């Protein structure tokens, strides 16, 4: 039982780093292939970011020694589920925009699928993981810790840096306009 709870603690890290990895993948496509994220892409990045906040919240709460550790796990998973619902709606809409035969889609495909299709798949996996974790929350509640280990601290810092980097690049892309352009070609802040 204790081993299962310990495993859950590390699975939360795996889950968090998976979301961060997807966000970094978006950055890679943006800078290595010079593909500007469209408004729907940015909205999907927001959904993935919120999905990462769920496990990050659970990991952070492990420090406070709550008596009801199971409920904190459910709260974190609920945040991830909300984010996955948003990601499914936004990604699904993006898939439908390019679903007609002959449409080349938006951006370079990765492993044969467009990035927004990967978002839909990721959100389905998030929903499944969050639902199963919530169902067995009494067995899977993570253990309380005196202080976070370096892996936890590193993962949380990485998430914070990726969120701030996203805020900065999106601001650079939108400039001093309220919304992003429908078909972005450069960074408006720098006159692009």
């Amino acid at each position: 039982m204790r081993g299962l709870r310990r495993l859950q603690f590390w699975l939360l890290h795996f889950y968090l780093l998976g979301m961060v990895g997807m966000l970094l993948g978006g950055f890679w496509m943006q800078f290595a292939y010079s593909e500007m994220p469209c408004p729907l892409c940015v909205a999907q990045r927001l959904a993935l970011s919120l999905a990462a906040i769920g496990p990050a919240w659970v990991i952070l709460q492990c420090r406070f020694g709550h008596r009801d550790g199971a409920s904190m796990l459910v709260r974190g998973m609920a945040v991830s589920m909300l984010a996955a619902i948003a990601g499914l709606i936004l990604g699904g809409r993006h898939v439908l925009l390019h679903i007609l035969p002959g449409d080349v889609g938006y951006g370079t495909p990765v492993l044969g699928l467009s990035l927004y299709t990967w978002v839909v798949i990721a959100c389905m996996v998030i929903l499944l993981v969050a639902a199963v974790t919530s169902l067995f929350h009494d067995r899977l509640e993570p253990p309380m810790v005196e202080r976070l280990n370096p892996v936890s601290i590193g993962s949380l810092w990485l998430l914070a840096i990726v969120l701030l980097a996203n805020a900065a690049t999106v601001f650079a892309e939108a400039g001093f306009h309220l919304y992003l352009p429908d078909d972005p070609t450069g960074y408006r802040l720098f006159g692009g």
Partner: protein
Amino acid sequence: MVAASIFLLLVLTLLSALTGRRRVTAVLAVACFVCMMLLGWHHMTEPLGLNL
């Protein structure tokens, strides 16, 4: 600027989780969800001139 602000709201949510304020974190997380859905709704309907 709206999308960048929501990213900053997410950072704020992470910071509130760091301080252990559970209710504030929950409210901020829901606020992030609502804001991103409103932004998504704008971008899903506006370019096509849809009136849903």
